[in-house]
């Protein structure tokens, strides 16, 4: 079957999205084709604005509409604690628990040589100057408890050895091998209460 070129391009673009396969992309493209013009325009506009209006916080690399995110700007947060997470979506999961009131630092991934992710590709070096600047007393490593997350935590803990800062890991409670993003709120909350000292 020959598919009209604009349709084929739309299918190709959609199938680049995570967890969208060829079949789903086809269904989405055909659905959009059948939708009225206003609906499609609203979708396109929201996507462009997403890209234009949202940036990453220059301090913690959280998703933000400003140079600094709402958490970094807030006067109510405990500025002596930084919780290190893999992705900005982990912040959403942790915020929902209401167990944590400190600041964050988003690494943008974990060490993963197979995917060509070494330390220089992550925001690890950006974490170190924050400690002196913000007077950090505790760093909480909240990375997924799998091989990559564990190793990244060990690597950061090694780097922090020369700093006067308490390093803890949120320990038990998280489903092993599971994504922080999908863990239920109660478990993450408990994980925060039970964090252990790494150094």
């Amino acid at each position: 079957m020959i598919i009209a070129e604009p349709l084929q391009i739309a299918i190709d673009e959609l199938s680049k999205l995570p967890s969208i396969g060829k079949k789903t992309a086809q269904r989405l493209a055909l659905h959009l084709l059948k939708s009225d013009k206003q609906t499609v325009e609203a979708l396109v506009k929201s996507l462009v604005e997403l890209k234009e209006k949202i940036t990453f916080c220059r301090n913690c690399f959280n998703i933000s509409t400003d140079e600094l995110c709402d958490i970094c700007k807030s006067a109510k947060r405990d500025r002596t604690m930084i919780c290190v997470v893999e992705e900005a979506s982990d912040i959403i999961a942790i915020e929902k628990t209401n167990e944590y009131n400190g600041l964050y630092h988003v690494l943008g991934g974990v060490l993963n040589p197979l995917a060509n992710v070494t330390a220089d590709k992550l925001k690890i070096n950006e974490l170190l100057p924050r400690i002196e600047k913000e007077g950090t007393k505790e760093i909480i490593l909240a990375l997924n408890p799998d091989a990559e997350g564990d190793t990244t935590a060990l690597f950061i803990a090694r780097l922090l050895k020369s700093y006067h800062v308490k390093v803890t890991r949120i320990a038990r409670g998280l489903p092993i091998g599971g994504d922080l993003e999908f863990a239920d709120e109660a478990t993450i909350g408990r994980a925060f209460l039970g964090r252990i000292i790494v150094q």
Partner: protein
Amino acid sequence: MVLRQIDLTNFRLHRKTTINFSDGINYIIGGNGQGKTTILEAIYYLCTTKNINAAADSDVVSFGQEMFEASGDFNELSKDHTKIVFDLSRNKKFYYLNEKAVNSSASVIGRFPIVVLIQSDHAITLGGPSDRRKFVDTVISQASQTYLRLLIDYNKTLKQRTNLLLQIRETGNNRLLEQLNAWSESLVNAGTEIIKHRKNFVNEFNIYIKEAYNRIMTDKEEPEILYESSVNTETQTIEENFKSALLNERDNEIRRAVNLVGPHRDEFIFKINGLELRRFGSQGQHKTFQVSLRFGEFFYLKEKLGKTPIFLMDDIFGELDIYRASKISEYLPKVGQTFITMTDLTKLDDLNKKENRLVIIIEQGKASYA
């Protein structure tokens, strides 16, 4: 634990098959290529989500069909309905426990413990160290979720570390060495726990293998398993030994881009009366050892899990002499629910008839009861 019933749809030769099982011995009789071993394959899928011979899932779909489906009802204290579906067009497998989707096989393994005696068991005593490690790993993994997770993490760490070693060799970038240290630490953390588990396992399992072996061979033959780790396990500080061994091999590891130290290089030595089976064992001793390993596994898991595993035996009587075959058939009633494939019924005449048994005939992908 008892498997009451299975339903197969588009599962190799079985287009639509339902079988009700006995809670004792189930003899599955059929000629070659009639679909009797397929029944064992289906049971194994339901207990582990995996293929019994590590065949591709797509091979199991009946010719010209889009998906296979197998479901089974287990009875323990509670009833569990399990179902596995493989979709050919999406090349995806789905597992359901009581109608709820389960995402990882790690959360199924050990829930319905299973012991399998198949042709490829030859490799455990005759093959290389990796065949013996695989045997040990499948037994401990069924008894301990912790061990299974450690193994998954450890294997991932090995792959990541190999890749990093390769990058260090190719780029000569010394800044990567700090990261290598972190990966080594992960390797040591998981690896040390794996070694401890294996050491304990061998200590305990020797009792089970002796018991099983002596039931099949009443002579004065004494089987034994020794654990030879690539890390010195004699002293209390396995972790320290592991670390220093890694440090010693560091340059070699970078030069070859290979993980040279750790439990992935462990060996298990099988012995009879102090002599290494692999070098000095007779054919009969090998066979008896293989069968004893599986019976030992059965009683070990039963003890550890407090659940009776299901026992699958693929055509074992064909290869055994009459003495061993009759000894094993005397042993069978001590086991729980068992599934035994055979090519013909006549062999049954020599075996025990008093037991609680069911004979199922499989012909051209259809089942009937004798």
